[in-house]
């Protein structure tokens, strides 16, 4: 096992990794930007190093700064958390060149799965269904129109290097395909430096179901069940739960087996997530693999009792997985609500600033992963997440009731938060019935759904 690990991230995930390391007896080195100098979790680290000014590109995204810190602090491994450099194959490559373990898959795997067109080919070869589409980049308008005519409208235009909803357009007819095609290319070029786009059939009102994978370097690939992340706003997840109310035991087995096949085909090591779209009629389609620990990983930790971050550290250190697939038991129901400093009444605009008072909820079945405290200033430079509130109960209705209770207890004075939105969703009859999809938030919570969306003309 590693003796000393550097955490190349900030906020709640930095804190989460520090906690896992401390429980395993690993020394931690936390790096931070000047915007995070006051963060309390830094005190839990054995060493802290300021790596740059607030902008991400000068600090948490600066490979030279992070590698220099790793060398100065003499660590054996770097945990990249999520976001920032977590899925940057070049960073993983630099780590390898510097003889520092990158806690995640190999750079070749990250590069392969980061290319969505290549990842789709890989899934097809592994016998995993993919959404019908262009089977590769679409270079011009004429080809886009031909492909769309073949697979049928509505069509989704997606950036090959995309993520987070950028470089994506929906087209329901030929004119909107033509405008959407050019807009998506321009957006992708700006956002990712790569304007390559591809086309897919749009699966309407799907659910977002993803499967957690753990794979060691000795050929063992396990799945830890699914998470249903259908409650999203503009492709940003708000609520995640496990198990999914939409899966039958048969469908669950099929989707989890498919995820394992994808991971094996990609020669995947460490923790990863295979994402699927699930149609109303029970067909599932591979979307992508996330080569990192995810924000919502505690949902799986609660239902399986397996500490995913500790497993990441052990796998990266070369240890074989001790648990077997047959040993993994799924108990009860877990729900996560992302508590963001956003104003739901002002189109979810970020609400950074000082938290005057924060009183966390507690009691049976409640877990809170948060780096915030009374007097903490949420910097305007990074994402707006204050924390992740989770509950774990014996069944879904009980979990929903516990979550509503915990949300009521949760006091955050100062910034506006997403707590009222979570209350609304959890109280809605469709959500309670488990009858919801990725369009739920736009349909029920947006004040002017058609205008607010803008792209779903």
């Amino acid at each position: 096992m590693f003796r000393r690990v550097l955490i190349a991230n900030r906020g709640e995930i930095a804190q989460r990794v520090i906690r896992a390391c401390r429980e395993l007896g690993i020394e931690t080195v936390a790096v931070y930007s000047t915007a995070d100098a006051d963060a309390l979790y830094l005190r839990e680290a054995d060493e802290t190093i300021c790596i740059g000014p607030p902008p991400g590109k000068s600090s948490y995204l600066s490979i030279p700064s992070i590698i220099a810190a790793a060398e100065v602090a003499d660590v054996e491994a770097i945990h990249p958390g999520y976001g920032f450099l977590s899925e940057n194959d070049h960073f993983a490559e630099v780590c390898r060149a510097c003889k520092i373990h990158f806690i995640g898959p190999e750079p070749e795997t990250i590069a392969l799965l980061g290319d969505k067109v290549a990842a789709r080919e890989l899934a097809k070869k592994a016998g995993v269904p993919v959404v019908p589409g262009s089977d590769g980049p679409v270079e011009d308008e004429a080809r886009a129109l031909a492909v769309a005519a073949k697979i049928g409208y509505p069509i989704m235009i997606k950036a090959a290097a995309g993520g987070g909803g950028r470089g994506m357009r929906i087209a329901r007819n030929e004119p909107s395909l033509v405008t959407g095609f050019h807009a998506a290319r321009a957006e992708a070029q700006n956002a990712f430096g790569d304007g390559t786009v591809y086309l897919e059939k749009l699966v309407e009102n799907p659910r977002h179901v993803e499967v957690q994978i753990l794979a060691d370097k000795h050929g063992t690939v396990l799945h830890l069940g699914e998470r249903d992340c259908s409650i999203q706003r503009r492709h940003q997840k708000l609520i995640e739960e496990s198990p999914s109310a939409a899966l039958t035991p048969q469908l669950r087995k099929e989707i989890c087996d498919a995820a394992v096949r994808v991971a094996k085909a990609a020669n995947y090591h460490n923790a990863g997530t295979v994402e699927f779209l699930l149609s109303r009629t029970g067909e599932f389609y591979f979307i992508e693999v996330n080569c990192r620990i995810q924000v919502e990983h505690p949902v799986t930790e609660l239902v399986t009792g397996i500490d995913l971050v500790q497993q990441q550290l052990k796998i990266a250190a070369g240890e074989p997985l001790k648990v077997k697939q047959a040993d993994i038991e799924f108990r009860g129901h877990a729900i996560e609500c992302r508590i963001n400093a956003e104003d739901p009444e002002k189109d979810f605009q970020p609400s950074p600033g000082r938290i005057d008072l924060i009183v966390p909820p507690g009691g049976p079945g409640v877990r809170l992963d948060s780096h915030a405290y009374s007097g903490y200033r949420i910097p305007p430079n990074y994402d707006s997440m204050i924390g992740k509130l989770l509950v774990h109960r014996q069944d879904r209705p009980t979990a929903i009731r516990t979550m509503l209770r915990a949300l009521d207890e949760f006091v955050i004075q100062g910034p506006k938060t997403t707590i009222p939105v979570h209350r609304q969703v959890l109280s809605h009859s469709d959500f309670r019935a488990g009858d919801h999809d990725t369009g739920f938030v736009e349909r029920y919570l947006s004040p002017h759904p058609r205008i607010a969306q803008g792209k779903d003309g």
Partner: protein
Amino acid sequence: MDLKLIQKLVALMERGKLAELEVEDKESGLKVRLKSEASAQPHAAAAPVVHMLHGGAPAMAPAPAASTQVGGEPAKPAREGKTINSPMVGTFYRSASPEAEPFARSGTRIALDQTLCIIEAMKVMNEIKAEISGEILEVLVENGEPVEFGQPLFLVKTD
């Protein structure tokens, strides 16, 4: 070197007419610098040094407020001058090689763009250059020590 001339100049200094003097003898290459005690203490009270500015720019001590002069005796700060802060995380080296002379030590006069030290990051030796001119009062980091972003490296009395 004309000793009598120097004595005359020192006398001028003692009378407060001259604050600082540098004499160079071209033949011997000898250089003498004299400074009156009065000039070592700036007339205005310098406010405490502000650390942690970005981009390696010198941290500016705020201009003394007029009110601090009321009552005559200015408050004596713990340290005076400006700091030159590390623009990056890495390992601090005072010289180009272990055998070489340090780029700067206390008392060194520094000019704009003069190399002050080297910070090694990712096996790259980054020369850190002065963005202010003046005199090094103190080198704040030991040779070979790790430094983080924004860490003060030198205390400088600016011109």
